[in-house]
């Protein structure tokens, strides 16, 4: 069966790419995830790399994304 990613899967892949490669910021901003959507994908993102510093790094990248999106301002 052919399946297509939904919005949350697309967000996961884009924010992961932002964390991994650092170059997908404009796409992440264009997708305009809500604070709740970022809360939902953060635990998954934190487990995508075995580096012990990865989770803290991911939280920093997502916090920066939240700031740029105006969440919590």
């Amino acid at each position, binding site marked *: 069966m052919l399946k297509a990613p939904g919005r949350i899967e697309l967000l996961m892949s884009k924010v992961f790419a932002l*964390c991994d*490669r*650092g*170059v997908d*910021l*404009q796409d992440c901003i264009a997708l305009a995830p809500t604070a709740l959507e970022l809360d939902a994908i953060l635990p998954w993102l934190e487990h995508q790399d075995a*580096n012990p*510093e*990865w989770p803290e*790094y991911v939280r*920093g*990248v997502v*916090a*920066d994304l939240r700031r740029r999106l105006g969440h919590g301002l």
Partner: protein
Amino acid sequence: MAYKRAAATDALPVGDDLTRAMVGIGMLFAARGIREPNIEDTLIAASIESLVRDDLRVLSVLTTWVQVHHPWINADRLWRGIEQQTDQRVRAYWSAIGHMLAKDRRFVRLQSSYRGPRIDLLRVGSEFQLKRRGEDARFANGPLRVPSGVLRDRVEDVAEPSALAKRHRTYRHRVLFGPTYRADMWAENERDPSLTASEIARRTYGSFATAWQVKKDWAVLKGT
């Protein structure tokens, strides 16, 4: 009123205009390019988009473009344009380019456009990425710290010099005569021979004297 040589444009392209200008100088984004945009204005505008608005895809292609096409950049015009910029990240990038292209002595002057401490390209997580991947060797000697792999370096992302020379008159004249104001003025005059010397000088950011000489030389050749 006396002619005053222009150093920078009143308005560098932004947004979709910038995308079309970048395509117009051979950066292969998925858009329709404008015909023969000003080369150095486009490079400076692309660096502002990249460093101020953090569009690192643009920075990847810009850096590759500079590496491929630097023999035909008017280094003096680029330097004068960068001197007008106040953003320290933009200045640090062009200083880094000055270090990267140090073998081409025309670009050494760019190194002086930034003199502060090293700046991280990534606003967050730079230490993590540098530990994980090391530093991009192209920037290792300059003031910008760039983790390896963040800026993609694919020569396929930019047009080859021969392809750009076919469709960009000023670039073609720079290949013929060298990347000088005179080459740009000759191209501008060829595009529209009715332009006055002062208008040619204004459009190319050059001196009135050089533009005047181009008009005189053009008149000599016109009858041959």
